[in-house]
């Protein structure tokens, strides 16, 4: 009973270790899922870098990208698979009769957006070149929009109102799945032709971004260089001055993510180390008590020939076993917790983590048991035999 109470520290430590690592692996999975929609061979030419380490004020006075710049780039760039200018806005009013959607992202773009974003349609078709050029009032909608506005009917060729402007639904996107921690779902998109977007939502309010699918991850760096050079010419950046635009890619997200998770993991390690430390002190305490209580036993063992190291090992192994037991209990507790986490993040408890946890608990036992075991092994047989 007393041992179980003492192992509580170890149990908590192991629960912390395993759930932390399970959660972190889950976060990573979820994150990769949600950024995979960006495409690893796609470059995004934007006014700002997505993750700026420097002060934002340095970018504030940059001029927006323009459609003319997009067209020039399109003409001059040698090798690419698809290129789409995009504008986007959140939270505009989207209605169908008396139903409305609150969380939506409206994107204005061209027919090539389907390829740069690797979108798959469930029904209907994507917007075509004619509709883009003529600024037709057509749109593609995601699954969440379908769910909200068309709970019972097929949305194809039906009308929805974006900012009170009627639009015909020509296509429905396949379900994309929840994004990072469910913050924004890719299923809440509405895609319009760029000019339609501008006429409905205003021309200058939303900045232009150029999405370029290179088609080959290995050529990404070359493409990046070429685009930089071209954009400097197009935007007339004098030599020696910094770029007044940025080329972003999925990689930037990953770096950002790794930093964030690094911080979380670091905090996790600190918490875990702390609880294991408390646990270790508990084990050390109980081992000292145990050594004192069993002084006579140690005396007997020594009298009949136990060497110093056999006593040392006996107590070390005992401490390690207590901790291993704690570790196993910790894993038994954190397994259901990992199942709960699995409801939010795509994860399960990884086997290496289980072994790591058991290894750590044995290690804690050996470290915390060493001093008491050492004391036991040094006991004088004459005195310990006399001990009552």
């Amino acid at each position, binding site marked *: 009973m007393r041992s179980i109470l003492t192992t509580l520290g170890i149990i908590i430590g192991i629960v912390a270790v395993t759930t932390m690592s399970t959660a972190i692996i889950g976060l990573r999975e979820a994150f990769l899922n949600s950024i995979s929609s960006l495409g690893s061979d796609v470059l995004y030419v934007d006014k700002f870098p997505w993750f700026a380490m420097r002060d934002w004020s340095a970018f504030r006075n940059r001029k927006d990208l323009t459609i003319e710049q997009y067209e020039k780039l399109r003409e001059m760039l040698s090798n690419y698979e698809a290129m789409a200018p995009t504008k986007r806005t959140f939270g505009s009013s989207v209605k169908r009769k008396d139903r409305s959607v609150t969380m939506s992202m409206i994107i204005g773009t061209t027919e090539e957006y389907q390829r740069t974003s690797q979108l798959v349609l469930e029904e209907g078709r994507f917007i075509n070149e004619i509709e883009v050029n003529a600024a037709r009032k057509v749109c593609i909608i995601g699954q969440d929009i379908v769910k909200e506005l068309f709970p019972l009917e097929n949305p194809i060729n039906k009308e929805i109102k974006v900012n009170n402007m009627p639009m015909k639904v020509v296509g429905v996107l396949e379900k994309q799945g929840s994004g990072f921690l469910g913050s924004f779902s890719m299923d809440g998109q509405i895609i319009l032709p760029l000019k339609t977007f501008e006429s409905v939502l205003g021309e200058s309010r939303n900045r232009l971004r150029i999405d370029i699918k290179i088609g080959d991850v290995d050529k990404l760096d070359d493409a990046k260089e070429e685009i930089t050079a071209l954009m400097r010419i197009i935007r007339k950046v004098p030599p020696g001055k910094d770029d007044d635009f940025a080329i972003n890619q999925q990689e930037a997200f990953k770096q950002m993510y790794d930093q964030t998770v690094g911080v979380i993991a670091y905090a996790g390690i600190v918490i875990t180390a702390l609880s294991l430390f408390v646990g270790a002190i508990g084990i050390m305490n109980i081992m000292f008590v145990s050594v004192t209580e069993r002084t006579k036993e140690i005396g*007997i063992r020594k*009298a*009949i*020939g136990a*060497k110093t190291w056999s006593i040392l090992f006996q107590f070390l192994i005992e401490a390690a076993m207590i901790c291993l037991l704690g570790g196993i209990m910790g894993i038994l507790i954190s397994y259901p917790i990992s199942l709960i986490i699995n409801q939010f993040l795509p994860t399960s408890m990884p086997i290496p983590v289980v072994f790591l946890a058991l290894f750590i608990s044995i290690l804690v036992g050996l470290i915390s048991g060493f001093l008491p075991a050492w004391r036991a092994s040094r006991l004088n047989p004459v005195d310990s035999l006399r001990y009552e």
Partner: protein
Amino acid sequence: MNIINIEHIAKIYQVGSEEVHALADVSLRIDKGEYVAIMGPSGSGKSTLMNILGCLDTPTKGVYNFKGTSVSQMNDNELASIRNKEIGFVFQTFNLLPRSDALHNVELPLIYAGVSSFERKERARAALEHVGLADRMTHKPNELSGGQRQRVAIARALVTSPSIILADEPTGNLDTKTGEDIMSLFLEISGQGNTIILVTHEEYIAEHAERIIRLRDGLIENDEIVKERFAPIKNGASKM
């Protein structure tokens, strides 16, 4: 043949600023096969002498040769090895491991000697049979009577076939009848050629031995042969 040969040994304890001479100057030889009783009132130094003879402790001065090897300067592990192989202890309070059964208690010295599990079990069983506890092997100490516990302890002392058996007041915690039984067992073991050193302060217990050494104030007061070697054994205990 000498098993034990001690010359001018002394044990001095420092108690506060005072030096206590538990043993002042003791010289002693014990031959193989002897059955010796060490007697003396409390404070005479007999416990200290027993600890030194049993290699549980080392003398402050003097030389202790055990089977021709000097043990006075040995370190803890070397002493442990001597205790394990050469000395069998029987204590007044039995000193069995309370949570282990009789068999495991008897096996214990063999574990420390590095004997294989199978051989250990065989030898422990044989030793328990030897002391008449064949049917008590799986009993824990608290399920055994005092006499039976002491028999387990004697089996444990015998199991390594040691050069000497050191018994410290082996009947001190037993009633007279059981004590007599244990003493008969010692006689039997002695009759089989074992060397026994018995520490006691009871005259009638010491009388079982062939030789009685009397201590007083850390010195040998008297050392005499009281019985011829292989004297007739009473109580019909010679069933060897």
